[in-house]
């Protein structure tokens, strides 16, 4: 066994250990801490699988942003559940364990019997890159071959936000999410919320901009921007925006609207919805990426802070 194989086995053991802890931990808080570690370890597996774009998305969204969302919910539910927790009976758990083991075994069999040579679309994706002016094949797939997926995905994210907002009580509609955070002048959080955002904003925009040629892209970059915004809100340096704000709503739909508009222009200039006219593909793709970055960062941040819970008092 080589050193690389040994390290890969160690990584798998750690991922499975963190996953098992996430299920077995007694308190929700401990389970979610395990889940965040699981996200970080899983991103190392993605690097081993030569998928650095996915590793960045997993660590930023799967581990980081989902972790903040779950930890906030756990803190609000902790110790306030009136009825005692009832675990299912031993029989119920045994049956569930047997079924899940059978599923794992079936999936293992599928992995062992995957077709060889493996089917691949890499040559097709690589062949189209020069025409698009891109160096990162994943960005090429997201914004050219499967652009319809991406444009609909931005709509899904927006719809999820509409769903979250629609859970607000009527009296707080157009109000502000969460509780107003007071600035703790002795705390370390306001310090970090002042020092980190300039670096984080630069990093986020960099991730979007290099996404055309290197690992990165709008989702990864927008997540970093959303994280910086959340840090500033959690430290109390800026209040969460009122969801009725006109500018906020324009910002939310701006990116998807530009994407749809460029897609529609493609019908006239390149003969198909979401097709790019030759020579202008790179410019249009970078325009879409940068405008989507703003809208996705706003949407992700607002998804974490949740529905409005207080009136918009100034």
């Amino acid at each position: 066994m080589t050193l690389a194989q040994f390290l890969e086995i160690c990584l798998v053991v750690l991922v499975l250990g963190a996953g098992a802890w996430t299920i077995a931990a007694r308190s929700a808080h401990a389970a979610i801490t395990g889940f965040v570690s699981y996200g970080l370890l899983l991103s190392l597996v993605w690097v081993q699988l030569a998928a650095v774009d996915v590793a960045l998305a997993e660590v930023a969204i799967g581990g980081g942003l989902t972790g903040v969302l779950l930890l906030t919910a756990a803190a609000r539910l902790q110790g306030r559940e009136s009825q005692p927790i009832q675990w299912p009976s031993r029989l119920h758990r045994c049956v569930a364990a047997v079924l899940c083991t059978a599923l794992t075994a079936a999936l293992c069999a599928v992995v062992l019997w995957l077709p060889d040579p493996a089917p691949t679309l890499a040559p097709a994706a690589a062949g189209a890159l020069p025409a698009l002016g891109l160096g990162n094949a994943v960005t090429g797939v997201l914004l050219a071959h499967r652009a319809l997926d991406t444009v609909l995905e931005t709509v899904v994210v927006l719809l999820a936000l509409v769903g979250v907002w629609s859970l607000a009580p009527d009296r707080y509609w157009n109000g502000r999410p969460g509780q107003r955070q007071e600035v703790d002048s002795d705390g370390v959080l306001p310090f970090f919320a002042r020092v980190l955002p300039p670096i984080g904003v630069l990093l986020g925009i960099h991730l979007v901009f290099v996404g055309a040629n290197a690992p990165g892209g709008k989702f990864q970059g927008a997540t970093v921007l959303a994280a910086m915004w959340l840090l500033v809100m959690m430290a109390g340096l800026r209040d969460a925006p009122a969801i009725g704000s006109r500018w906020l709503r324009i910002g939310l739909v701006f990116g998807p609207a530009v994407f749809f508009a460029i897609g529609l222009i493609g019908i006239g200039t390149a003969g198909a919805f979401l097709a790019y006219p030759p020579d202008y593909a790179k410019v249009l793709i970078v325009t879409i990426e940068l405008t989507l970055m703003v809208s996705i960062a706003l949407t992700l941040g607002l998804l974490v802070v949740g529905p409005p819970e207080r009136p918009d008092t100034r």
Partner: protein
Amino acid sequence: MSSTTLFGMCAAALVGLGLYGLLIHPQTLRRIVAFNLLGGGVFLMFGVVARRGAAAGMASDPVPQALVITGVVVAFSATALAIALLLRLFADSGDASLRSPPHDGVAADRTHV
């Protein structure tokens, strides 16, 4: 065993673990966490397929990778919506689990509120 097979087995085990948590946990928040664990396993399976499809000078097939990035973002949106539903359920009923009310009296009380 090749590294793709090893990571494929890992993905299979994660799907099993996540599904087990989803089936047996009484608290809804823990079920949401388990569902995300399951999702991570499914995405990893895609990663294994992508890595095996290395060709044309690329170390990994970009199409499954792009699908997984889309999936990660959609999974986050669904989780955020689920958490918002859970917190609203808790605010309205004081209970954060999905079981039916223990006796008819509670259900009758709720209809009068």
